[in-house]
């Protein structure tokens, strides 16, 4: 979302600036050429005739209004979702801030889980608040495998100086077929 924000922000700024410049050009042009029947850059007399003939209840107006509202809602959502989702660590001194990306935490957890005996594969999603592990076990694995995986993840999180320890959830599925 931050990439989208970085792309959208200058484009919207330039669009706003272009609209302002065109507006000024047309107002000044209409001022100095009172007898002109066409706009200098944009055909605003035609737009004006259309706007004078359309009412608020006419067909395209509600659809355009709803489209504008949806675009506005999307922009609000992009602005809200573009916040940083860093995982924070405890720093050795107050003038140091230590962060990492959730994918780094997920990779650390995934490496630890995949090293566990009887785990065939694992998928990890992580955030500052929660770590979810979805592992596949071999069909001859022990019944305690879930608690083993959970304790290994807990051990890893205890080794890391995390400012806030995320909750751990582990789901285990049995892989069919021979090892």
């Amino acid at each position, binding site marked *: 979302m931050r990439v989208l*924000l970085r792309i959208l922000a*200058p484009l919207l700024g330039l669009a706003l*600036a272009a609209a302002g410049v065109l507006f000024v050009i047309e107002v000044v042009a209409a001022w100095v050429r009172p007898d002109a029947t066409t706009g200098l850059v944009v055909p605003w007399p035609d737009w004006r005739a259309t706007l004078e003939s359309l009412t608020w209840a006419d067909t395209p107006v509600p659809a355009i*209004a709803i489209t504008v509202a949806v675009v506005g809602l999307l922009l609000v959502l992009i602005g*809200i979702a573009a916040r940083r989702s860093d995982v924070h660590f405890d720093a050795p001194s107050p003038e140091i801030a230590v962060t990492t990306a959730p994918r780094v935490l997920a990779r650390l957890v995934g490496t630890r889980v995949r090293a566990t005996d009887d785990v065939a594969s694992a998928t990890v999603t992580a955030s500052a608040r929660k770590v979810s592990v979805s592992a596949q076990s071999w069909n001859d694995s022990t019944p305690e495998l879930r608690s083993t995986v959970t304790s290994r993840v807990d051990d890893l999180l205890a080794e890391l100086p995390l400012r806030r320890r995320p909750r751990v959830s582990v789901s285990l599925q049995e892989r069919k077929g021979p090892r």
Partner: protein
Amino acid sequence: MTAPPSLTKDAAPTRDGAQAKTAPAPAKLRRRSRSAVARSAGGDRWTIVIVGLVLLAAGVLVALLSYGIFGSARAGRPLLDPMIVDTLRSQPLVSRIVAIVVGVVLALLGLIWASNSVRPERRPDLLIDGGPDTSIVVSSAAAADAVATQAGGLPGVGRARARLVGEESAPALRVTLWLADDADVRDVLRRLDSDVLTTARESLGLSALPVAVRLELDRSQPTARVA
């Protein structure tokens, strides 16, 4: 291209330099170090949310008006109401001046927004007061390269990158460390603070240097699948 200077305690300039007068409060340092984590997108986020809210409110109000929520008589009036046109025509000079001012303000706001969005991040040089008649400037790249070189030599760190960010009067350091898979994060951070950053502060004569550390994992070495 000159090699980055090494940061050693012997190279420390005078401690009564301009930037070594008083250390800022811990809360202020913490805030500066947090804001150095990455280039701020707060301005863009707020602006885009405000533009979005304006569009959302306008779209909803026009849709309600179109569907007759505010009365069928209002919904039946033209978009460019003759009443408004007559009002503008009765004061042509004022209307034109207001329109021009609105256009100029829109253009300026758009240009300011766009230029702020694409402007490169500042990399401040460090100005060190070497005495009454001497002023020493350490370039941003030299100071950052020296820190990165030392941080890259810490046990458990594969490579490191550093960059000075912020204002010249309040610089901060952004350090990215690529750690080995078996690195002890606690130990790396402790060594970074005691061996690298403390030395850097003393060498540069800074009473405080907020630091944002970004941890990444170094690319893992592929292991042989068949022994």
